[in-house]
């Protein structure tokens, strides 16, 4: 596994992926060898870096993609970067997804800006999975839905889409289609990333059978496990304990976590 370092990488392309969502592709051989689900901490003008998961990892071209939502001044600055600009990046950081089991049906479930790391996982491991591969993507509305075309180029059957307002796909959340998928594939493996309430619901759904890995988001300080800011409650050998999203995660097995 690549050990984290601070380095500067050149932006080789910039794409508007949806309303308030931008993807930057970096020329970054070191980062391109990261594990899907790992993330980087990107320097912006503020006090703290911004944690962003990899949207693509292409070790052949030596490129890594970062897809983020503009939510404040830091990400607005980042969205203003252009092809040819350089980014100051700390990473790769954290524990990514495990390699999926080849014979288990595999479902990638992404909500909003949680979708990108699942695309990185899909492209890294789709050839390893001999069982079925499905994707369920959710967003607030059509304007905010990202990477449907990217997933469509990899998966040769329809991708389930849901939106809160029904502007594209089914109205509702990813939970509806996931419940159907789980009923058809009770021993399947689910990789999910999205808002915390969505992940809590995925964890509940998968309690009965199957396997689920969840990539979490939390307000983060150092990114390397030193400051203990980005904690989540998890099951420990002697009872509940805090685990660090940046260092112990961001990917956890669903049954490791305790939802309040």
């Amino acid at each position, binding site marked *: 596994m690549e*050990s*984290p*370092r*601070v380095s500067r990488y050149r932006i080789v392309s910039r794409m508007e992926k949806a309303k308030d969502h931008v993807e930057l592709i970096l020329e970054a051989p070191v980062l391109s060898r990261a594990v899907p689900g790992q993330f980087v901490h990107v*320097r912006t003008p*503020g*006090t*703290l*870096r911004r944690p962003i998961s990899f949207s693509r990892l292409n070790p052949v071209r030596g490129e890594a993609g970062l897809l983020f939502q503009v939510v404040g001044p*830091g990400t607005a600055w980042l969205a203003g970067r252009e092809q040819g600009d350089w980014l100051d990046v*700390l990473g790769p950081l954290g524990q990514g997804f495990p390699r999926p089991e080849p014979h288990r049906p595999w479902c990638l479930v992404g909500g909003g800006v949680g979708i990108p790391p699942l695309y990185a996982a899909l492209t890294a491991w789709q050839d390893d999975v001999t069982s079925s591969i499905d994707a369920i993507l959710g967003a607030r509305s059509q304007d905010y839905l990202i990477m449907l075309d990217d997933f469509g180029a990899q998966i040769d059957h329809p991708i389930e889409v849901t939106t809160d307002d029904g502007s594209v796909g089914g109205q509702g959340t990813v939970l509806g289609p996931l419940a159907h998928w789980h009923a058809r594939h009770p021993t399947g493996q689910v990789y999910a990333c999205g808002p915390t309430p969505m992940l809590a619901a995925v964890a509940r759904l998968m309690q009965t059978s199957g396997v689920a890995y969840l990539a979490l988001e*939390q*307000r*983060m*300080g*150092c*990114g*390397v*496990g*030193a*400051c*203990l*800011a*980005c*904690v*989540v409650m998890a099951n420990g050998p002697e009872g509940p304990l*805090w685990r660090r999203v940046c*260092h112990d995660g961001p990917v956890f097995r669903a049954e490791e976590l305790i939802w309040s």
Partner: protein
Amino acid sequence: MSLEVRVGAVRLANPIMAASGTFGFGPEYQGLVNIERLGGIAVKGVSPVPWPGNPPPRVWETEGGMLNSIGLQNPGVEVFCREDLPFLRTTQTRVVVNVIGRTIDEYCQVVDRLEAESGIDALELNISCPNIKEGGMSFGQDPEHAAQVTRAVRTCTKRPLWVKLSPNVADPGAIAAAVEMVGADAISAINTVVGMAIDVKRRRPALGGISGGLSGPAIKPIALRVVYQVAQSVSIPIVGMGGIRSVEDVVEFLMAGASAVMVGTATFAEPGTMEAIIEELPGYLARLEVSSVHELIGAALPGR
């Protein structure tokens, strides 16, 4: 040029240390920071038993700084001695253990337990954390309480004892003088400044702990004023901290009366901050036409 300084009996290869709470227990930044280059590291606060800390969110960025409400989560002194000290003993850099408690007795329990252990160069008594309900900052609020806890700990150990002060008081100089009277060997100043933020999307306080401690460049003027005032109130050395991110910041703290400094929040954005400062310090001193760090300590104080 030698960058060596002394904080009482503790010799530092250079005046730049990592501040408690921002550098874990030492190994977290391995590969990103060469701790052998640092003057020292202050590890995260250690309590007698494990403390869970506060609910998340625990950090929130603000203009020119950040708020934290970690709440002194730590595994307790037993686990610290068993799992963290062995690594710390392998380093040549100075190790400062930050000590926390809810009562005077709890501070003493930690210090007593550490007496049997090697590899500790100084203790930093934390009577200034704003993020816990009992103990912590309440001991740092007035000279009498600060002296009580310092006096009690002083009887448990001969180790160099630094007392970390809060800026959230009317007269930090009086508190510094009170702990000096009962045997403190140095003053660390400052801890974070109490503050809060509102998350407008949730219509709630941004931090799980409601209020938190402000750190970063925004608090540097507050810290400098405390160091400058404390320097005129005590004769023991001062370790200055609060918003330091450049060699010029360090020199400001030295001139205000600090003998050494700690860097905290700046490490999060730039892990290389401390090493960069150490690299730049000799050239900066040369431009000021001084031949040692020592010549700058207190240079801005009245009568100098």
